[in-house]
């Protein structure tokens, strides 16, 4: 799991444990975990490609402004209370029996997680 959220949770557990032993090491650990969380962010050029994919291609069903169409709205208020992992799995594998197709040919699981993370926090233009 390289998703920022779960790694943040892991980070909290980890650093508490280390704090008990030695705070200096804990700080080093924090730095390490943070950089590995950032490593799951796609590079800027790829982020732009993914943003275009979501606005244009996902937009054909969810609306370019993501307010919904044949597919449901994907605005922060619609997704906030849903488990991010499940949403990322929906993007990656699709939902059989519905019109939501799998996108695994066009993005990785980590990128699907990044897209969901962006959707939840407010998708860039």
């Amino acid at each position, binding site marked *: 799991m390289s998703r920022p959220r779960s790694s943040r949770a892991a980070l909290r557990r980890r650093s508490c444990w280390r704090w008990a032993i030695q705070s200096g090491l804990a700080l080093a650990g924090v730095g390490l975990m943070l950089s590995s969380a950032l490593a799951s962010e796609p590079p800027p050029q790829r982020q732009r490609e993914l943003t275009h994919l979501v606005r244009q291609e996902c937009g054909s069903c969810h609306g370019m402004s993501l307010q919904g169409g044949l597919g449901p709205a994907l605005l922060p208020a619609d997704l906030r209370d849903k488990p991010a992992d499940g949403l990322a799995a929906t993007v990656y594998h699709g939902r059989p029996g519905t*019109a939501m197709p799998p996108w695994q040919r066009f993005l990785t699981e980590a990128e699907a997680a990044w897209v969901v993370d962006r959707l939840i926090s407010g998708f860039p233009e």
Partner: protein
Amino acid sequence: MRILFSVLLVAFLGACAGTPPLRGTGDLALIIERASGHVTLANTSSRQPYARIGGLGDLSHASAVYSRDGRYAYVFGRDGGLTKIDMLAGQVVKRIIQSGNAIGGSISQDGRIVVAQNYKPGGIKAFDAETLELLAEVPAEYAPGQFSKVVGLADSPGNKFVYALFDAGEIWVSDFSDPRRPVTQRFPAGQNPYDGLVTPDGRHFLAGLFGEDGVAMLDLWQPQQGARKILEKYGRGEEKLPVFKMPHLRGWSVAQGKAYLPAIGRHEVLVVDVATWQEVGRIPVRGQPVFVMARPDGRQVWVNFAFPDYGKVDVIDTLKGEVVSQLAPGKGILHMEFTPRGENVWLSARDDHKILIYHTENLTQIGEITADAPSGIFFSSRAQRIGF
């Protein structure tokens, strides 16, 4: 000489008053620029743009219909905007926000009622074509408290509108003989109709089904017989390919007694005999078809595709029953529109920010128009067609 003089005088006075020269509207085009909320107006004879209008809101999946004189275009935006545009003056006449989430519209046989179809709140709304005043609405409430998204809205003779309910699996026919008191009939159709069309003669309504194999068909001359399924055995038991964009039926094709329809979940065009409604062939193509459109004379059928194959266009020769040309016109080909007699076709290349104009006989590009992420192209010649 006298006549010449008066013509000159009229022209001179016209120029003084700042009025544009008189012209008809039969050869005009409206191009949706989906990302920026603009439309570009163009002349299909000179193949040049002549006006650009902004402020139309979210135009993804936007479409347009025309008043019967071809003077006014009604543009239906995704955000529920309905804008009436004067094609000659090149300006907005009136704009209203009629719902939260719309997906196109239609105009009545007599040209007096413009109807919008809405996803949210699901249903249709009828407006006075002159003033855009709300006349009536038909909520798509198929069970108490349950509303469906509406798709495939088309006009049919008798000031009727036919449409399908995605979530309810029904076809509804609303009769607007009395524009303020529509009367609606309901017909079970099949699972998840995703789009619909009326045949060029206005007799049959077809709804493509996403949730099951087949197409639902309602004979509007004999609606009491109910909707029946055609192409039912199509693709039974075969694994479906993912569909990254829903096909559109609106621009559909009847040529030489056969209908050409996009298959769903298969890279094929289905050929149906319109006398018997039996499948008579399948033509392999290079992707999930989105628009399958016949040149007005029916000799060719042009096919564009869903992501990721939307850089391609296949041209079918209807005499041979096969693809005879595989084109790669540009990036993100979203829509195609033929000139009324078919000598040219305009293609929108969204990611090239261009409209590409092709000659349909020799398949070469003869012109282009710059536009910001263009999607739909709507020619004023639609004003005279049933189901457009």
